[in-house]
Structures are given as structure tokens and as C-alpha cells.
């Protein structure tokens, strides 16, 4: 029986999530034994034509060309999984959604007229139907293996949607907000990284985006109690997942307050 065909596509991104696939090292051989790696230019120049059974998409949509190309990728894919903060939320480059793109292009490039770029960086789900989203900046490599395994075995991936706090507690890491007043996005951020930053006594940066039922406004109130300004809150929520709706609404709210208060 022919193995399912796997494709990996890149849009606007840093390639870090694709590298996470290569980073599974020995397990890469196991992956290659259950799927046919048919189209993965980062790993091999050999490209086998679609359609593909499983497609992993990295990156956000930032150009008219990509906005077209993602539809072609969708047409070639039976099961499409977006990987990483760019593909699932627009990525760090979504910060441009709050700015004037013409100002950037005219400042950076001698001939901006050769560029064809969109005003926004948006997640793949805004353009085509997505079957599963794997969060993270970057994604966790073992979570990638789990997604591939679940696809091959015809089951739902074991990917949690609860908060980072659950991972801290399972590891026995004391809460950094409670025990030393370090602002942390963990309570509103989806688990998946293994609560990396709090285990080094730092607050969470929100790399995995909003958890299943994020109360961002109450967490913002708690941060203010720890001395963080409205401007500080805008910066915190405008990270790798800035354009994810719950984070976007809260950063917009505190930006309005920062302007009103002259911060």
C-alpha cells in the first residue's frame, strides 16, 4: 500500500517551524517510514507532484501572490495543518497591521514600486479552510510528531488547549506572578511549550497564543497591579500572536487607554 503523501509549504515566516521537523533527528526516519515526504523543499530538492494527503503550512499571508498560492495549496491537500504562530495568527509580522505599509516600503526600499505587498499579515485560516492548527513560536517538535502520528493512525492529536499554568503546576514550578510578582502571560496562553520561561523564573511571552477561554482583561488588571503601564500591556500582547483576536482586542483597548492617559 502506498504511504500517505506529505507536503510542507512555506509562506511569510522565518522557517523555524520547518526546521523543527528536521530537528526531530532520529524520529525523522520513523516519519519517513509512515508517510512519503513528497514535497519539502527545505529538506530535499526532489518534489513529487500533488495531491497530498497531509500538508503542513508554515507562514502567514502577506502578498497578493501568496493570497492566490494558498488556494492552490488547499486544492492540492486533503488534510491541511497550519504550523506556528505565523500560519495560525499572522506572526510577529502582523505588527504591520497597525502601521502604514507604504511608510515601511518607502523607508526601507529604494524602489518600493517593485514591491507587491498586502496591507496586512493574516493567518491561513482567514483565506482557506484549515483542518488543524498547531500553535507555537516555534512549534514543539514532539507535537509535530504527534500530529503526524495522529493523522496516520486516524485519531485526534493529543494537543492541549488549556493554559500554560497547567504545565507549570504539573512540573512543580511555583507561579512567578504569585511568588515574585513577575508579569506572566501564562494564564491566558495555550500550553504546549512545557512552560519553558516560568521554569527559568521568567514570565510567559505568549508564544503559543490564546488558550481556550482567555480572560485577557482580568490578567491585564493583574499586571497593572504589578506596576505595568497600559503601554507595557500593549507591548506584551503584541508579540508573536499579536493578531490573534483575544490578544488584539486587549492590546487595542490598552492602546486607547495609553493614548488617553498620555503614556
Amino acid at each position, binding site marked *: 500500500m502506498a504511504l500517505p503523501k506529505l507536503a510542507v509549504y512555506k509562506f511569510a515566516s522565518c522557517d523555524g517551524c520547518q526546521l523543527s521537523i528536521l530537528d526531530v533527528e532520529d*524520529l525523522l526516519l*520513523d*516519519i519517513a*517510514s*509512515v508517510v512519503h515526504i513528497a514535497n519539502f523543499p527545505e529538506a530535499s530538492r526532489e518534489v513529487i507532484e500533488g495531491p497530498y494527503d497531509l500538508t503542513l503550512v508554515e507562514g502567514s499571508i502577506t502578498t497578493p501572490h501568496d493570497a492566490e498560492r494558498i488556494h492552490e495549496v488547499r486544492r492540492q491537500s486533503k488534510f491541511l495543518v497550519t504550523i506556528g504562530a505565523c500560519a495560525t495568527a499572522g506572526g510577529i509580522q502582523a505588527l504591520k497591521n497597525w502601521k502604514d505599509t507604504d511608510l515601511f516600503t518607502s523607508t526601507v526600499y529604494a524602489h518600493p514600486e517593485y514591491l507587491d505587498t498586502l496591507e496586512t499579515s493574516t493567518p491561513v485560516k482567514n483565506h482557506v479552510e484549515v483542518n488543524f492548527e498547531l500553535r507555537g513560536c516555534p512549534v514543539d517538535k514532539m507535537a509535530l*510528531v*504527534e500530529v*503526524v*502520528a495522529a493523522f*496516520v*493512525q486516524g485519531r485526534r492529536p*493529543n494537543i*492541549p*488547549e*488549556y*493554559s500554560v*499554568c*497547567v504545565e507549570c*503546576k*504539573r*512540573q*512543580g*514550578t*511555583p*507561579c*512567578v*506572578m*504569585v*511568588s*515574585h*510578582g513577575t508579569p*506572566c502571560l*501564562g*494564564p*491566558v496562553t495555550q500550553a504546549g511549550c512545557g512552560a519553558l520561561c516560568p521554569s527559568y*523564573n521568567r514570565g510567559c511571552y505568549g508564544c503559543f497564543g490564546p*488558550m*481556550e*477561554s482567555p*480572560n485577557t482583561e*482580568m*490578567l491585564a*488588571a*493583574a499586571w497593572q*497591579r504589578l506596576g505595568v503601564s497600559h503601554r507595557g500591556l500593549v507591548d506584551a500582547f503584541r508579540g508573536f500572536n499579536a493578531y490573534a483576536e483575544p490578544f488584539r482586542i486587549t492590546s487595542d483597548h490598552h492602546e486607547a487607554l495609553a493614548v488617553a492617559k498620555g503614556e
Partner: protein
Amino acid sequence: MSEMFVSGQSGIGRLIQALAERGHRVIGPIVRNEALVYDEIGGVEDLPRGWTDLQEPGRYRLEQRGDEKLFGYVVGPHSWKQYLNPPETVLWSGTISPEGFMTDPMPEPPKYAFFGVRPCELAAMQVLDTVYGSDNGTPAMAGRSAQREQTFIVAVNCVEPGGNCFCVSMDTGPTANSGYDISITEIVHHGNMRYLIESGTDAGAEVLAELAPLENASDDEVQTRDGLLAEAAASMGKTLDTEDLADLLKGNALNPRWESIADRCLACANCTLVCPTCFCNTVDDNLSLDGTHATRTRKWDSCFTLGFSYMHGRPMRESVGARYRQWITHKLATWIDQFGEMGCVGCGRCITWCPVGIDITAEAEAIRRGDLRDTQVRIGGFA
């Protein structure tokens, strides 16, 4: 009552050593990441000498006391369920091959000695004994009772309750009455650190006999101990009025207060994970990529996650208000219907470790008073 002995800090060190020599892994409080957590201790020098913990809703700070006390603090973010009901346990794993299906050998569980168990924590272990031991217990917890039986317990009575303690309301402290092998009370007597030690079981008496010669405590020392413990009972940080509380909570299922709590609650699950009696867990099945090796893992879960109540295509408790109501009502009311007692022991962890300081005693009181909206219980300075 058993004989009351007394020693200085060297006797505490000898006790830790004696337990290690009997083959126990001795677990006790240590300082890590600016909090007191439970981990392996090698001797009295590992204990948090001279530290105390200041606790408020949503706030915890370690501070130097300026004295030599070994037990001058209460409970931190860890509880003993970390060891008796670990955060992640492989229930079984196995491999399929042409020869058939073989389960992997399981590691022998370690033989623990818990050192510095507070009275509320003893009560919490007993609450979980009932949960796991009764007909309502989950078969998945088989093995806990064997582990529990071989665990040696050294309790420490609380002469200085913390800011969020309410064990007196729950009738679980500040003095341990049962469930320990040895109990210790730390007192300052004529300027000296003194440890009043008594056994609660034959195993405890045996260990104490090995520590000989231990002095007998003087009447004066026993009186000082009793006085300190009576004082502690009168100086709890919090109170919870439990009279008719179960009926009150059950009769308020539609109280709009739940939605006002939801405005504050992060649904992060911290309260349930630090609680020494919350026992909700989930089971993950994992299969290797090639489909030949399977692992079934039990993990701590929480009634605050959506996945926990997910069935038939959607979560049963979608709103955060419904999740908080489920938690507090189970803990203080329906737990009695299930297990004959409340599930709360008054340790205050859920109050301290809630990042936004939601206070179970204040919320129960608000329901009692009929406060629909927040007034002064905009807790932890969130005015």
C-alpha cells in the same frame, strides 16, 4: 497520649538520618524559585531555616525571619499529592511484535518518608484515602493505597498560621490528631529552639526509640507548646462559616454571582492544581509513529479546562461561571454527598496561588450574604 520527648535541632537531623537509613526517600520543604516546595532532603541543613512565607490572596513572598526556626512558615504551592498521585503517571505501556503483545515492566514505586506534613495536609491525605478507597474510587488509582501504607509521615504542628489559613473552620488543625507516625511542635523555650516530639504509631515509636537518648519534655515545655497551639487556633488568617453551607451552595445554582466571579476568574486551573484534595485527572493514550508501542498516561487535569467536561461534541461547562460553580459546589457541598465530608481542608492554597486572588472563603460568604455583585470582595486589591 504517647510520651512527649524533646530535642534541639540536632535531634531533627538525627530523625531525618534515621528515616533515610530505614530505606525511605525523605521528602520535605526546601526553598526553590522563591517558594517553599517539597523535594528530597538529605539532612536538617536542607530545611528552610529562618524563612517564613507571607501569604495574601494572589500573593506569596518568602522572607527571612531573623531567627533559627526550621518550620516558621506554612504550606507552599506543592502538596503531597505530588508524590501519592503524581502529575503524570504511566499506567502501562506495551509493545506489539510478531511474538505477540508484551507490557513493559513498571518501575517499583519509591518508599517515601514525608517530613514536615502540616495538619491540614494530613487531613487532605485522609480525604483522598476516602475518595480512592471507597466504592466511588477510580480503579486507575489502585496502587496508591499500597504506596500510602509504606509512607512514613512526620507531621509538624502549626504554631504560626498563614494569612490564608482557615483549618480551624474546617476542623483540620492547627494540631495534628491522627494520621502521623511522628509529630513535632517547634517552640522557643527560654531563648532556645526546642522540638517536642511524640509518636502516633508503633512505627513512629520504634524510630524514636532508635534516636535515644531523647529527653522527656518538661511540664513547662508542654505548657508552652499547648499555649502556642491554642493561640494559633485563635489567629487564623481566614474563616469559612460552614453552617448550612452545602444547602446554601446547592440552592444558589442560578445566582448571578457566578457570572461576576467569571469576570475575574482566569480559568487557568491554578486553584485546582495546588489544592491537596483536587483529584481530577485525564488519561492520554499515545501510540508510536510505527504503531508498535503504546503508552497510557494519567495526568492531572482540572474542572476549569474545557476539555475536562467535553463530551458528545461539546463541553458541558462552557462558561467560566459554570466551571467555578462546579468547583466550589463540589468542594464544599456535593463532596459530602459523595464521600461524607467536605473536600476542603482550609490550607488556603487556592487563595494564595490564584494569580488574581479569588478567595473561596469570600465567595462562599458572598453567596451567604446574597451579594450579587462585587463590593469589597473585589479581591486582592483589584478595586
